[in-house]
């Protein structure tokens, strides 16, 4: 899934330095990083992202945790203002998937000050750096970009290069310290900023996080941001261009369903989800390293990011008037709410009609009856009037009870979640066994709780307080003797 398994290194100053050691999986082959990448406009040959190269793994010393001192020194030599922010956070219960309970970490960030600007606006490029080989290449690419950006004169907004530890927790701590607020309620979780980046990250800013794929509705960026990414990706030919074939159609459908599932889960799929609260448009870019045809290389990702930064740098206003609540079948197409809502509307219409036809004609819901019953016979004051109908037993013959029961059990939040997990794995082309599915199910519940605790995600309380009681009520209505 993650494309960043193997190690990278590449240092513009000449001496290649390893960031974090990686005993990578089998993905090194897909990172065909060319030694010379021709197209990037650059004044200085040594300092552009195309030069990010692969470093032989065997010669790297094993490291653990985030190399804070090294990062600070490197950023300093690049000519950035460097600060670090230690944070600590105690989880309510041990997180077994990531093996953490009392989280202690450090965020390191370097600020590239825009010349002739008063630090009123800024862009953030963030790369999570965790223990192990996870996402090392992103950090390396980020540093290479920082080095290239430092030599340019055209920046109108400050650029903050943030390396955060313990990915989402680190980001949340950084954001809270940045905005000088304490949302998660953890005393001392966000120590005061050693040096705030000078009032810079106004809510008008845009953040690029270098990790994950395109998000959407609740926790995703507005379409303006995604458009930009798509434009840059198109310019760099990172995506396929054949449209009209059946496999492409199926692929789009798969992407769409995946997106629906991800959005429905309500979890932040990347760091960008956390920026939404602060009204900062964010996007996470992730190289997908699968066994498909379309691979990426670091040079292309670097060019894409540079293009996005230069476009964002030219923005005079915050991204606004962008579409929200959209679905993405592919990178360059979207389904707006105006298109998919009628479908939902018809689904609901069936229910409405059902209800209104339930009690001897249409007397249950006079407005609906008026609307739908133009050329029907409306019983004038016949039967039970409006409000007097109650939820009595339907008078027509109903399907067998146990069918209802099965249906109701299937729509319990728990069963939906379980089915959702299987569907998700199927769509990811990574099917799992029943036992694994059960484990993931338990994991998902634990993570839902944790998300609620850590980032204030509302899905868990929504299900526990609203959806589940509703389900119980429905059960009672149907099976009350």
């Amino acid at each position, binding site marked *: 899934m993650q494309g960043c398994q193997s190690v990278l290194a590449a240092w513009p100053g000449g001496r290649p330095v390893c960031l974090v050691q990686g005993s990578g999986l089998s993905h090194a082959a897909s990172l065909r990083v060319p030694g010379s990448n021709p197209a990037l406009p650059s004044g*200085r040959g040594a300092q552009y992202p195309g030069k990010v190269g692969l470093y032989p793994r065997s010669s790297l010393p094993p490291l653990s945790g985030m190399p804070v001192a090294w990062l600070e*020194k490197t950023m*300093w030599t690049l*000519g950035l*203002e460097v600060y670090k922010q230690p944070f600590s956070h105690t989880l309510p219960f041990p997180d077994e998937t990531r093996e953490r309970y009392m989280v202690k970490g450090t965020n390191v960030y370097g600020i590239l*000050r825009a*010349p*002739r*600007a*008063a*630090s*009123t*606006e800024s862009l953030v490029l963030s790369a999570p750096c965790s223990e192990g080989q996870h996402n090392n290449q992103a950090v390396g690419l980020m540093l290479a970009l920082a080095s290239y950006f*430092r*030599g*340019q*004169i055209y920046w109108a907004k400050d650029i903050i290069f943030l390396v955060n530890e313990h990915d989402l927790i680190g980001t949340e701590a950084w954001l809270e310290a940045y*905005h*000088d*607020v304490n949302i998660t309620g953890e005393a001392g979780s966000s120590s005061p900023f050693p*040096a*705030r980046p*000078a*009032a*810079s990250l*106004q*809510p*008008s800013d845009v953040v690029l996080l270098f990790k994950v794929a395109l998000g959407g509705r609740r926790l995703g960026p507005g379409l303006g941001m995604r458009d930009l990414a798509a434009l840059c990706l198109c310019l760099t030919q990172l995506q396929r261009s054949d449209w009209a074939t059946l496999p492409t159609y199926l692929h789009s459908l798969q992407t769409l369903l995946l997106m629906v599932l991800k959005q429905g889960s309500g979890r932040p799929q990347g760091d960008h989800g956390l920026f939404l*609260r*602060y*009204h900062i448009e964010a996007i996470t870019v992730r190289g997908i390293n699968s066994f498909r045809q379309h691979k990426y290389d670091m040079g292309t990702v670097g060019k894409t990011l540079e293009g996005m930064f230069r476009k964002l740098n030219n923005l*005079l*206003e*915050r991204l*606004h*008037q962008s579409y929200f609540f959209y679905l993405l079948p592919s990178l360059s197409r979207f389904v707006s709410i105006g298109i998919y809502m009628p479908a939902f509307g018809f689904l609901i219409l069936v229910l409405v009609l059902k209800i209104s036809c339930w009690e001897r004609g249409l007397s249950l819901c006079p407005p609906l009856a008026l609307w739908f019953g133009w050329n029907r016979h409306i019983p004038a004051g016949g039967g039970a009037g409006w409000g007097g109908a109650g939820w009595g037993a339907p008078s027509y013959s109903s399907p067998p009870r146990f069918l209802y029961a099965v249906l109701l059990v299937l729509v319990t939040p728990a069963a939906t979640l379980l089915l959702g997990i299987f569907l998700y794995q199927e769509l990811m082309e990574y099917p799992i066994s029943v036992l694994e599915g059960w484990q993931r199910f338990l994991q998902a519940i634990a993570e839902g709780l944790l998300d609620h605790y850590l980032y204030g995600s509302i899905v868990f309380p929504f299900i526990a307080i609203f959806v589940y009681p509703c389900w119980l009520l429905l059960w009672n209505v149907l099976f009350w003797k």
Partner: protein
Amino acid sequence: MAGASVPLGLLLLGGGRAESPRDALREELLLSPLPSGDLAATFQFRTRWDSELQREGVSHYGLFPKALGQLISKYSVRELHLSLTQGFWRTRSWGQPYLQAPAGAELWVWFQNSVTDVDKAWKDLSNILSGIFCASLNFIDSTNTVTPTASFKPLGLANVTNHHLLIYAVLPREVVCTENLTPWKKLLPCGSKAGLAVLLKAERLFYSSYHSQAVHIRPICRDASCLSISWELRQTLTVVLDIFSIGQGKKDWSLFKMFSRTLTEACPLASESKVYVDISSKDQENELLEVIPPPLSTHEAAVQGERKTYAVYDLLNPALFNVSRSLNVQLKWKRPQDGSHLSMPVLHAQRYVSGYGLQTGEISTLIYNSHLYRAFPILLLETVPWYLRLYVHTLTIITKGKENKPSYIHFQPAQDRRRPHLLEMLIQLPANSVTKITIQFERALLKWTEYTPDPNHGFYVSPSVLSALVPSVLAMKAVDAEQSPLFTSLFPSSDGTSYFVRLYTEPLLVNLPTPDFSMPYNVICLTCTVVAVCYGSFYNLLTRTFHVEEPSRGHLAKRLANIIRKLRGVPLL
């Protein structure tokens, strides 16, 4: 020179400089490497005119620009300070500035006692200055003008204490570019033709991290006895050049590399023309840097609490041009600096907006006193536009975990669409401390015509101003202002133990709740459609008369009959 010869010289030569020092020009360039490795270049041009400008009838102008002189006499200005700045002086990494200015445009003026309607004079003055300097100073109105009570004292000779004669305004959004530089250069007696001003090449000056140009006009003592006054016009220009990006990572620089020009002569009208290079190094025993050509003299002074050594190049000294015809000052570092430990400036500050959402927010100011053992007071001036409604009861000042009571507070609340908030405080900063000042505000909803064309960019809040007398580690000798270099002599130093510092914090960019401006268009479209469809059909239904048409028989026969009747000329059926 005898006083009697002055009118004689006037009569004979019409203000010739040979006989009487009626006006004099000094030009000066200070090059100082900054702790971060950047380079600050400060140009100062001082025109001094021994004349009573305020008296009527001054019509002959020599070096002093006539446009400004007439302005001063017409509006009875006592002091005028205008600065136009692009960028922000980063005190934390660049150290204490000689002359800081807030981002954007800043204008503050002291009027004479004789001015009765200060507001009108201020309005006219800002409009005229707007024309002279091609800046948007005409946007200065009552919503961004304040009258500070304590922060801005007259810099020149003055005995005014009535602060109602002072007016202060900042436009934080002003963008400074060549169209502001050109009129500024035209005020120089030599223009940009000769002297130090040849280095003022716009394309190099704006390839920088910070650009600030200013005009200061003030009355000064004519001589030591101070019986009569002279007028002083100081034009200053500060640029910070990013040596890292110019020099491809090396920190060596030369005049030619920075300005793509070299110096060949002084301005012929100048009585003094000098280039100062700051060569003081932190550790005395080993010299880290080398200047080429070797300076003919050096100047030592205690500036801003530090002992500094300057290499001096006097352009009026012919010995300087003996070796080569042009002067290209170069600086080379003998070995790479280890700049990872920056020395903190004694006083610095930062300001930011905290919180999220579009309803409320909080303005926080952090003020650092890194002096190890001396506490000192500072004056803080905040000007906040009316559309951020400050809640004064939420004002908290916390130093080292304890509340810090200001010894003086002046608060003038805003009036909607008429006047901004003004908050002035005198706060004591304990030694080696950080003071956090927070105040909460609520964002107002503007009328829809009051939004700027780019409302989603945000609205600017002007920088707050910190004025302080910072205690000095060194004892500074009181020196004669006429003899010392220009960069040390703008702010009057009270005594030898402290020096005056004025700092500006960052401007803030605040988002206000912004409506969707395409909404009116949508509403108009929708309303028109609804009206057209409903009204049209109703009107149609109401006004149309219906009648029952009888089925007519014999259609064809009737028509035939009518044709025949028409031919016959009898009335139709």
